[in-house]
């Protein structure tokens, strides 16, 4: 148990550093790149003094490092700041007239993000489910009969699905399933059936990676001595494959999953845009396009945090599956 605690402490510390650098990086990039959030906030017709006043109120006139320090201080106290553009009432677009008083109640970044998390988790989780359902059985069967027809089919599936861009695939699914066949809805979110198509589009990016990894690690494991011994002991091939081989081929799979989480997130962002699915991805794209600095920073902290967290979990799971691995 001592090991685990030491491991968690060390990895969390490293993770904090990674998240810190990620936020610092995006904080600086957003401010160095041209593009004025204040102009977007006050609208095109506002006079220059108003522009200057709002910029001063938001602290955008201070040196960058001072701004960053203030931001960090807020975060330590649990305050992620307020969105530059989104009003509290839940509307999504800024740019009201500069003298409109309603524009002043701005939504808190924390709330904006938290209310979108469940939808994105649902999408990502279902995508992962599809990918596992598609990739793992096919990968195992391909490994059992190398060069057989399942293997050939799996190979073709991998090279096609890895090559087809998921935003285009999303459009095709939309066209066939919801416009032509009218089976499933595809735009927005009003219930569980709205998640099926987008999650499938995301999963087709993930499934080939899972398939390839599980196939090659299964092949490695199948050649090991303990498999021959198990056969000699008269165990059924089902129990050999599922209990002994599959478990041992999980390690590379888990590692790949940890690394691919970034790809999963990237895919989710684009697919949410295609299907106009109101999750974190759509929020991210609009936040970036609207130069909503505090919102982008909040999202980056979340993404980086999730990335770090999942990689820690993956390492823990690996050592659970294979007791020889130490932390």
């Amino acid at each position: 148990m001592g090991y685990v605690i030491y491991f968690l402490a060390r990895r969390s510390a490293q993770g904090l550093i990674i998240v810190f650098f990620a936020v610092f990086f995006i904080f600086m990039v957003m401010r160095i790149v041209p593009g004025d959030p204040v102009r977007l906030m006050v609208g095109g017709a506002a006079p220059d003094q108003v522009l200057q006043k709002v910029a001063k109120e938001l602290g955008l006139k201070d040196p960058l490092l001072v701004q960053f320090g203030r931001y960090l201080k807020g975060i330590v106290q649990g305050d992620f700041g307020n969105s530059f553009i989104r009003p509290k009432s839940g509307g999504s677009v800024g740019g009201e007239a500069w003298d409109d008083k309603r524009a002043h109640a701005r939504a808190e970044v924390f709330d904006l993000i938290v209310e979108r998390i469940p939808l994105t988790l649902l999408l990502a989780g279902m995508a992962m489910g599809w990918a596992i359902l598609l990739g793992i059985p096919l990968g195992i069967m391909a490994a059992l009969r190398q060069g057989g027809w399942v293997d050939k089919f799996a190979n073709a599936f991998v090279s096609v699905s890895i090559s087809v861009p998921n935003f285009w695939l999303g459009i095709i699914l939309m066209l066939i399933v919801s416009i032509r066949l009218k089976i499933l809805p595809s735009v927005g979110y009003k219930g569980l059936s709205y998640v099926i198509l987008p999650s499938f589009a995301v999963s087709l990016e993930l499934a080939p990676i899972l398939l390839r990894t599980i196939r090659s690690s299964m092949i490695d494991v199948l050649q090991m001595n303990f498999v021959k011994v198990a056969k000699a002991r008269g165990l059924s091939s089902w129990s050999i494959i599922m209990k002994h081989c599959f478990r041992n081929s999980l390690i590379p799979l888990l590692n790949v999953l940890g690394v691919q989480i970034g790809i999963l997130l990237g895919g989710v962002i684009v697919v949410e845009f295609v299907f106009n699915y109101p999750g974190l991805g759509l929020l991210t794209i609009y936040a970036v396009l609207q130069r909503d600095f505090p919102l982008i920073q909040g999202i980056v902290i979340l993404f980086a945090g999730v990335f770090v967290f999942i990689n820690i979990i993956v390492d823990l799971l690996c050592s659970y599956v294979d007791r020889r691995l130490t932390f």
Partner: protein
Amino acid sequence: MQVSKNPFLKLAFRNVGVIAGLSIFFILLAASIFGPHLLPHDPYKMNIMNRLKPPVFMSGGTWEHPLGTDALGRDLLARVLSGLRVSLIIGFSTVLLIFLFGSALGMTSGYYGGLFDTIQMRITDAQLSLPMIVLAIAILGVTRPNIYSIILVLAISSWPIYARVTRGIVLGEREKEYVRAAKIIGASGPRIIARYIAPGILPSVALVAILDIARMIIFEAILGFLGLSIQPPQPSFGNIIADGRKYLVNAWWIATMPGVVLSLLLISINMVGSGVEKVRKTIIET
């Protein structure tokens, strides 16, 4: 048929995937280079009388416009080929750039270690933890993107992987005899990296880079789809598809046709990439 004396190339040219992939790739490459000169239509020329014409295999389609026309009556084939050219230029130049820059940095930090190495590794960790697309739209969202800024942004968001991979390899190489021997005869650090380490390790990294060409092309298409790549009226795969999304119900071919060509291109590159990788593995094993 004796293709080459190099055993690697010899095996590669016997691999079905590599041959098939290369053939498709060169057909597409030729189409993108010569197509615009041979086709009777200009990708920018509008013809409202001819708008939303279906492709040739549907009823009402003609060979005049093999892939049909878009909402402004522009020939879709001409636009797709023009977009193909942009994709190829962006894909290849980005990968060349990140391969050179990333592996130079990776080799240096792997060889020297120390503070430089630590800082660089933390930066790559941080960058790998945020989806590349956030960074890319952050930079491209405010500028009017042109082909150079797109290449630069794609490169900025993907070099860390190369830095990390080459660093990992160099860490192992550094302790080997030939590097120690080179040190003893008085070779300087940069010379050892450039003359002794790089020729040994870069070819295998370059083979993996083939697959990244496909990744960069997808990435460019995604940006184009979001409206952050080449700006209309100049066509790119992404912006044709984004435009076609509006006409899905009455003219489905506008969004689908560019995607078919794009997928073909990506499949061909991936076939070459994975074929070459297989050949490399068999050579290492024997």
